[in-house]
């Protein structure tokens, strides 16, 4: 496993894996979409329940991607490992996109169910908004410092600090009274959802997970190659 920390070995290992992940993600996304529209209406929420199938996986992946960013940042900061830094950087954009999607789709679900697009006093909504801002801050910090090593260290510190927000997002619905419903998947006693909704939801979550892995691995591989290109260009500039 640690052998994969070598960029060459990582590129060799992930070369056949990446297209398999893309194909599996596409297939599972199609299946999950079909299951989502084959599911019956909810007796209370009507057809808005179908927003859940894109909202919940987006929120879960937004959290998971930040976990990947934070852990990678830790290894980049402590061991100064280039691959860990590439992994952290590569997780930022898809993580921000998933978190942004969770906010937008949540708003589209909130309006017909709560009568409001947004609630500033809601702990879950605010903690997810803060997560989104951490992603934006991470990417802005990296882009604002020309020296890539300094940018990587500063962003890794920010990435680590943002980890504090993850349990707040997860447990906000238990710690505070919020408009947002409590956890219905990962909870004591198991999921509180009927199988007709649980099956498409879990399928979509698996599809999002594979999709994130495909985007992430492709972006890490690209980042390794980008750094090689920049190194070759810098060497040539010195020789010229």
């Amino acid at each position: 496993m640690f052998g994969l920390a070598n960029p060459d070995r990582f590129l060799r290992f992930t070369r056949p894996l990446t297209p398999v992940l893309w194909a599996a993600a596409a297939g599972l996304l199609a299946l999950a979409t079909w299951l989502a529209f084959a599911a019956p209406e909810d007796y209370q929420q009507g057809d808005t329940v179908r927003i859940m199938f894109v909202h919940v996986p987006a929120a879960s992946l937004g959290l998971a991607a930040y976990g990947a960013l934070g852990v990678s940042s830790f290894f980049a900061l402590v061991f100064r490992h280039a691959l860990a830094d590439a992994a952290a950087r590569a997780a930022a954009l898809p993580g921000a996109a998933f978190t942004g999607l969770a906010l937008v789709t949540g708003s589209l679900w909130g309006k017909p169910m709560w009568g409001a697009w947004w609630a500033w006093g809601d702990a879950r909504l605010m903690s997810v908004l803060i997560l989104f801002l951490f992603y934006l801050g991470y990417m802005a910090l990296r882009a604002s410092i020309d020296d890539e090593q300094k940018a990587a260290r500063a962003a890794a510190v920010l990435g680590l600090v943002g980890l504090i927000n993850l349990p707040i997002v997860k447990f906000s619905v238990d710690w505070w009274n919020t408009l947002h419903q409590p956890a219905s998947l990962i909870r004591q006693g198991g999921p509180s959802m009927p199988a007709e909704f649980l099956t498409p939801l879990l399928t979509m979550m698996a599809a999002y997970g594979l999709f994130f892995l495909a985007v992430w691995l492709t972006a890490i591989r690209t980042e390794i190659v980008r750094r090689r290109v920049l190194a070759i260009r810098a060497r040539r500039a010195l020789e010229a």
Partner: protein
Amino acid sequence: MMLDLDMGRYAAFVWPAWGITAVVLAGLAGRALLAARRWWRELKRLESAAAEGDRA
């Protein structure tokens, strides 16, 4: 199982949620794959130029 595509009075909320999701996922995939192609091509170009330089 039959597909239910009639979202009734909630169509204005359900379809935009799915539409935005489709656009964002397609954008993420497209960006990742195009960037990969661009940088791999550039690496190969530089490496072949270096190999030609060595031969010369």
